[in-house]
């Protein structure tokens, strides 16, 4: 019962080891702190956006071990030993084809939801290179856009699928 005897304490924080965008980090934060706040406030990675705080809008989407999750619902201790990818990580090697597709197809207006959208699309396409329209809709069902409308976003996803099939590489910009 070693972990139970010495719990992660909010007062005397032990490091929570994880990987963020490929870099090994030790998070010295309260264990139940939301990943969203860890990223934005402690690590100054503000590409991940804050909005609803209850997992409804998708603006705060990140990938944990390759799967999309809402960082507002994820607590720091749940990241222990995990690999986290944020929007900053997606573009670390240059513009990702998904990002390029959103630009070219008009998949955004104000852009606030876009980082979350990009993450959800990347999580989808990394697991399923050729999703059906229904699968795309399901994958994006947790991402709300309130100004673009979804037509441009759907076109962007289709374009990204085509580019990835053609071997478009990051940094072609």
């Amino acid at each position: 019962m070693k972990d139970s005897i010495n719990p992660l304490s909010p007062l005397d924080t032990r490091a929570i080891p994880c990987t963020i965008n490929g870099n090994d980090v030790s998070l010295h934060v309260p264990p139940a702190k939301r990943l969203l706040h860890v990223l934005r406030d402690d690590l100054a990675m503000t590409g991940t956006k804050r909005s609803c705080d209850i997992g409804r809008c998708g603006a705060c989407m990140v990938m944990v071990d390759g799967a999309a999750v809402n960082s507002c619902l994820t607590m720091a201790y749940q990241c222990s030993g995990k690999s986290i990818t944020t929007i900053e990580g997606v573009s670390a090697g240059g513009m990702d084809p998904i990002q390029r597709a959103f630009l070219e197809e008009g998949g955004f207006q104000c852009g606030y939801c876009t980082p979350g959208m990009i993450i959800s699309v990347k999580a989808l396409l990394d697991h399923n290179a050729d999703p059906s329209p229904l699968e795309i809709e399901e994958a994006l069902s947790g991402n709300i856009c309130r100004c673009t409308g979804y037509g441009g976003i759907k076109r962007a996803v289709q374009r990204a699928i085509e580019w990835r099939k053609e071997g478009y590489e990051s940094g072609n910009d």
Partner: protein
Amino acid sequence: MAANAQGVAEAPFVWHPSNTAEAWQLKQTFGAEGVFTAGGTLLRTQWESGLAAMPTHLINVGAIEELHRLGMDGESQTGHIGTMITLSEIRTSPLIHKNFPLLTEAARNIAAPSIRNLATIGGNVLSMVGDSIPALLLYDPVLHWHDGSNGLEEPLSEWLSTAAVHAAWKERLLIAVELAKPTLDTNTKRFVAYHKVGRRDAFTPSVITAAISLQLDPDHRLSDVRIALGGGQTIPSRLEAVEAFLTGKPADKKAITQVYGMILESFEPKGDAFVPVSYRKKAAANLIASELWKASR
């Protein structure tokens, strides 16, 4: 954005028991100050909305290997779904899809993939109103608890009937949900359907959640009829009187009309400021009637 703009205090101790006995012991130690947590998605929304205070101690059961078991006993044809199995795992599991297809469909309709990647079947069941429950209820579900002694088994329907008023279950740890695969009688075909009616079908509390499973013989007579309804804050339940009424009958216009009336009469959903009881009753009756009509064709 939630009302408390800076968010709730994020200062509980987080414990990581490695087995069910440790977890249970921690809960006994902390009492109401300690809360079991798995995916934590529902808890977080309750903390944010002020429905529950963040506890002093979180007992994270994620590290307990036993709770992650998903399997099928070929001999007894029972499925075992550990409480830590995520809704995404259920959504994509070939084993679940093959043996309990309504549960696959239910998982597809709960929240969005990003939440399903965190949220667990245990959390969905223990919410008492989760949209997996109407599907589960059609597979004779049994809850397996750790209660500090030899374990406790309890039909899900029994637990649902008292969980809202008797809180003793909060002292126990849910280990798994066991499901029985329905057998198919010779010379019959099975019909199943699951529906979630809501303003945004994958994302808001549903107006009505319905699951139905039945057998039809070559004369279109019904047998092994199972129907469950829930939705919103309604605790799901089987419609046993309707099931008994339909058994042995053909799903013809007369029977469907009577079932429609029975549901309007007997189903007792909870209403709210957006969707009144009368609307929910009518939606439920329409859904079941339309599925019976489809089954009869």
